[in-house]
């Protein structure tokens, strides 16, 4: 995202007269990437919708406290990721639910004689879901959102070296799972 437009959007949000207009523009710009980031982490659409709403409500409430030390993009990802982490803490058996969802998807695909690539995608997601929480977040941010380690570091408050190690181990584990479940 263009930094100039981010600065413009936030100047709109910080001004009470144009707050709603700026907020709508901000949501239109970021709702899709944020939704898919959340969805990849929590799997269920309903949970992803709730967390996305909560993320933007927090942005609306605390927009005044944004100091511009990081980009808006990473700030939004940080809020969304924190909301996901809260969700994991609250619903300790979320992984079981997520597995049920993917198993159902896998069943639907096998029954409908769908392409092998779809089955592969689901197995890939199952492998990611089995990763430890931090590795899963790092893998998603790096592999799907293609964020730099510096940006991920701003989102997760971690050093670049730690994130590189996390991503490396995550890739190894996913590869291992795919080989074992081929």
């Amino acid at each position, binding site marked *: 995202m263009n930094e100039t437009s981010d600065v413009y959007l936030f100047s709109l949000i910080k001004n009470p007269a144009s707050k*709603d207009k700026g*907020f709508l523009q901000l*949501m239109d710009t970021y709702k*899709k990437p944020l939704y*898919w980031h959340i969805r990849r982490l929590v*799997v269920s*659409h309903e949970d992803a919708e709730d967390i*996305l709403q909560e993320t*933007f*409500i927090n942005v609306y409430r605390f927009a005044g406290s944004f100091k511009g030390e990081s980009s808006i993009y990473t700030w939004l990802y940080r809020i969304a990721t924190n909301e996901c982490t809260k969700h994991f803490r609250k619903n300790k058996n979320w992984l079981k639910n997520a597995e049920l969802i993917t198993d159902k998807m896998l069943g639907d695909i096998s029954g409908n004689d769908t392409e092998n690539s779809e089955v592969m995608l689901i197995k890939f997601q199952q492998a990611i879901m089995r990763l430890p929480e931090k590795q899963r977040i790092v893998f998603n941010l790096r592999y799907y959102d293609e964020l730099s380690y510096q940006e991920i570091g701003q989102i997760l408050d971690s050093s670049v070296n730690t994130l590189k190690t996390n991503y490396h181990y995550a890739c190894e584990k996913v590869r291992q799972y795919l080989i074992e479940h081929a």
Partner: protein
Amino acid sequence: MEPIDEFKEVGKNLPYRAPDEFFDELSEKILQKAKNREQSHKKMLILWRPVAAVASLVAMVFLGYLFFDTENGNKQIVQDNQGQTDQLIKQKSELSKEQAVEEIKKDVTKKSDSEANSTENMDNVLTDLTDEDLMQLAAMYETDPFTDKAMQ
């Protein structure tokens, strides 16, 4: 920047789908919810401010009451203790007075007893003496240079 494609065979597609038209009007819906949430927060603040003020006032009054109550309690305890010690001192002094009186009485009776005994002893001694001894004693009395009679 290098492309991130460790899993080329899988790609970056997802097996998940978002419901049709999910993103349409999502922004307006969330904006409405955010506004409602902010209003309810403001209402809560408006409601809670007087409640918090009253609660802090009650707490202060209660603390003040506790403080003064303990101070008065301490004074009462000191006064009670003072009264008790005064009483003890009084009792002790009365006891010692009584004891002193009794001791004096005992001393007086002892003295009078001993005086009575001494006169009785003297009478006994005199009755045991013979007439000759008595005559001798009388002569000694009359010739004793240390008695008043001898001086005259």
